[in-house]
């Protein structure tokens, strides 16, 4: 880049152009990578499973069901009773027939709470259940 010649009074001015270039690059990077909608429950601590296959391109029909430590069911951050959850699942099954179900259950959840969700799924004819786990933790 060509340096501008400045008079001796402006001699100490720094050339801003490269810095602004870098800063804009950074901002564009952050804008692109930011995820605004945070629909997951932050309290849920998933179990570790480093050998499971990675979650790649998600099927848009995927239903993510979260079960927290105490067994509360929530979808997209909204807590639901089991009856309400079942109603939602039945409605969804009417529309899509089959759709993938991903269960994000806390590692300390009792199996009976996971079972309740799985039973509702099998009631509406969904046999394949996916469990989410952490493949690699960010430090």
């Amino acid at each position, binding site marked *: 880049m060509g340096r501008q010649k400045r008079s001796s009074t402006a001699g100490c001015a720094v050339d801003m152009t490269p810095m602004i270039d870098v800063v804009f690059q950074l901002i564009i990077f952050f804008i692109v990578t930011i995820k605004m909608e945070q629909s997951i429950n932050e309290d849920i601590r998933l179990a570790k499973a480093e050998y499971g296959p990675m979650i790649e391109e998600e099927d848009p029909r995927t239903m993510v069901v979260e079960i927290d430590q105490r067994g509360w069911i929530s979808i997209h951050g909204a807590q639901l009773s089991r009856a309400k959850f079942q109603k939602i699942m039945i409605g969804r099954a009417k529309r899509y027939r089959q759709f993938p179900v991903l269960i994000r259950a*806390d*590692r*300390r959840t009792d199996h009976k709470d996971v079972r309740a969700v*799985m039973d509702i799924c099998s009631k509406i004819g969904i046999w394949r259940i996916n469990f*989410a786990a952490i493949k690699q933790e960010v430090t």
Partner: protein
Amino acid sequence: MRKRKRRPADAAELEMTPMIDVVFQLLIFFLVTLKQEDILSHLDVSRPAPDPNAKQEETFKDLLTITIHRYGYMLKGKNRSIEQLERDLTRLASFSKSVSVIIRCTSDSQHERLVSVLNICAKVGLKKLSVFSM
């Protein structure tokens, strides 16, 4: 902010200061809100129907039952630690990967135990997994 007096040759230059201020604010905002996410994996199981009049499953030769209870794991009726279970399953999978694995969970077992068993199955390459509850 004080306006600097410029010579007429510099008159066409833009005042950069406000823009840089804003850009830095944005940069700091994004830096602060950035949160790295864990890489997630998914473990697939099938959930057989709890249908009482379904015909009793013929006793398949290739059927392996793992029981998960609150305090540990059982394989073929014997208590196993997670390391022993991993060793046994690795050996079994080296003979045949088409073994159907039935995982039976007691209702008070933690979900973490189920995930760790599924993790081992994924590691050794067992694909036919079913989860039963009891």
